[in-house]
């Protein structure tokens, strides 16, 4: 049995290493956009392969443990949560790559200045990813609940950004393709935040054994 516990610890370790890579990818993708830095963009693209490999490895590990150890209660919750978090992390990594692709496209064109606050949205999304993972690691239910609550703020920001960009495109038709890139960036950030809420839900599931998905009251 001791062996099994060690394997769970190892699984969490792998998951956290992957989380570190994904967080870095999100951070670098946003920075590449803000600083118009090719270097940083390349970094994210290079990281992507590593993240995908880790996802496969963690998935195999978790599935094997599920199949061979027939875990109960807490361990079972942890394993299912790990599989889901692994999936969410991989998706976040993909979204970061999407942002980088938009950033690379914007880099080759003159900058535009619509009144949208992409960095603020990016900060919020990054904070949510970070906090959701911290809540999982530290088994901190309050922190996880706060992540669920901040999802609305990101959604609002995305809506404002959409409206502002639509206005911007109407006034400046030549900038439409660049503004569209920003629309996609905002969309990707919002989806990153969604995956962060998934992770926070899984963290709550591990901590309390409560399924908070699709429950309006938990989201406030």
């Amino acid at each position, binding site marked *: 049995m001791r062996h099994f516990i060690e394997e769970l610890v190892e699984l969490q370790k792998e998951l956290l290493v992957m989380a570190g890579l994904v967080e870095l990818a999100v951070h670098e993708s946003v920075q590449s956009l803000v600083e118009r830095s090719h270097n940083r963009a390349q970094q994210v693209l290079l990281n992507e392969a590593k993240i995908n490999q880790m996802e496969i490895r963690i998935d195999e590990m978790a599935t094997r443990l599920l199949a061979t150890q027939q875990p109960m209660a807490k361990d079972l919750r942890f394993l299912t949560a790990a599989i889901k978090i692994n999936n969410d992390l991989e998706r976040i990594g993909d979204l970061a790559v999407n942002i980088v692709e938009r950033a690379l496209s914007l880099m080759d064109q003159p900058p535009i200045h619509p009144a949208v606050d992409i960095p603020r949205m990016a900060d919020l999304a990054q904070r949510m990813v*970070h906090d959701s993972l911290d809540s999982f690691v530290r088994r901190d239910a309050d922190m996880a609940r706060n992540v669920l609550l901040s999802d609305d703020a990101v959604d609002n920001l995305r809506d404002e950004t959409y409206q502002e960009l639509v206005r911007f495109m109407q006034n400046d038709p030549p900038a439409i393709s660049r503004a569209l890139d920003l629309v996609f960036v905002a969309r990707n950030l919002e989806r990153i935040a969604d995956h962060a809420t998934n992770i926070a839900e899984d963290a709550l599931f591990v901590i309390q054994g409560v399924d908070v998905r699709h429950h309006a009251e938990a989201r406030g």
Partner: protein
Amino acid sequence: MAIAGPFFRKLLLGSLLLILVAVVFLDALLTRYTAQRELRSVEQDLRARAQILTAEMQDLPPEALAQWVLEARSRAGARLTVIAPDGKVLAESDQRPDLMENHASRPEVKEALAGRIGSASRYSDSVKREMFYLAMPVKPGAVPGQVLRLAVPAEQVERAVGEVRWRILEVSLAAAILSLGAAFLLASSLNRRIQQLQRFAEGLVAARFDQELPRGPKDEIGALATSLNGMARQLRDMLERLRLEAMRREAILSSMVEGVLAVDHELCVVFCNETFARAVRASHPVAERLPVLELVRDPALLEMLAKVLVENEQQKRRLQLAAAEGRTYQVHAAPLELMSGRGAIAVLHDITDLERLERVRRDFVANVSHELRTPLAAIQGYAETLLDGGLEDAENKRRFVEIIKAHAARLNNIASDLLALSELESADAGPPPEKISVADAVEAAVTAVESEAALRKIRLHRSAGSDLYATANKIRLEQVLVNLIDNAVKFNRPGGEVWIEAARLDEGKIRISVEDNGIGIPSAELPRIFERFYRVDKARSREAGGTGLGLSIVKHAVERMGGSVSAESQLGKGSKFTVVLPEG
């Protein structure tokens, strides 16, 4: 004091056993000795009587024998038996001889028949009691001849022995009690001292070092007590030193602006200081032996630590930590010798501000060249056009000269702003601050930008009490307000509004705020707007006639007057600049 310790019991039981064995042994020895002596004296006594009686019997006719036996019995104080050489009983004092069996087989009689004196002690069937017998030939030399046997009850001997035995028992009992008492005292004293030592040692284990063992007798236990006292003293000193050391270390670590993280060979936290915990937004103190991954997941930092552990060499790198809100750190990582083996320590120096300053300086040179080159290029271009025949172009020459003039004015603006800035930055304090009416300063500033505001259809609202006074420099304060209001007007939408408000804060401070509902500033750019030549929207700023130095001048001027300036903004909603000055 718990007297019934096993040690005490063993000691007492041991001495009890020893005393018991000694008493029993002594008792047996003495009893045996007394019995033998008593027996010998009875035998001698009987022999003496027997000799007298045999002498009497020499002349006795055989028929008087029965009578004599009865008569001699009382004199002898013993039962008398006369036995014929064939063992037949001839006469007997206490019984009828004809009823008695042949006595030839009795050991003492056998001896006497052989001519010697025989004695024995045995249970007599005739009288039903333990008897002592002595038999002697009546005529020495006549073998076998008549035998005279004397018998006395053995209880006489027993009584004597019993008497002595009781005395011995009394004495040895007294000795046993006395020695037991002594043993008890010794055992309890030993026990007490050993328990003292034990309690002392337990105290040491529980880290009570203030106790001291009493000085006892100078034996082995006393020596042990002295050593223990010395040990306690040394432990106390050592612990004190360690505590001081730990306190010193804690003080140094917690007062450090650098984050410190130490890990062991399994990448578990050995310690980290508060700065580090704060940087990664963990609660301090961090649990010992927490896997570092659960504290910080940044791949670059983890990789550095792992590398130090493997290569055992120092590492130095500049990292941007996503966990610490993207702040930049210069990280030094070095091997660390730990009790449990190899470890690594990382010191994180936050160089975000330093990097920013560096960038500001770099940007300034680039910006100032760029800012100067643009108007200069225009002036040069139009001057060349004029020289290359433009002077003859009556239609355009006036326009060209006007453009040259506009760009020269712009150059002039930049130069005077730069001069103002450098004056503000110089060590020279400038004119001393005085009591200035805030309402007057606001009024003067509003007057200066009124025409521009009217042009852009922007309404200015002001509310400044006439009783508000600030300690400031009049020209500088007006310049600050003009720059702020000018920005609020320029970076606004047509029909926008600007509010200028002044109020008294607590603790002798005046707050003046300039708020607009204009285009706002992106949050990422907000920290940089006070930098020289920093522009959020370069094209728009230049078009509006700004030099890119206005807010930089505001910041320096306000700080020069002992105040502070801050900005908050929401993109698309507007900005608010707040100046706080000492009250006049």
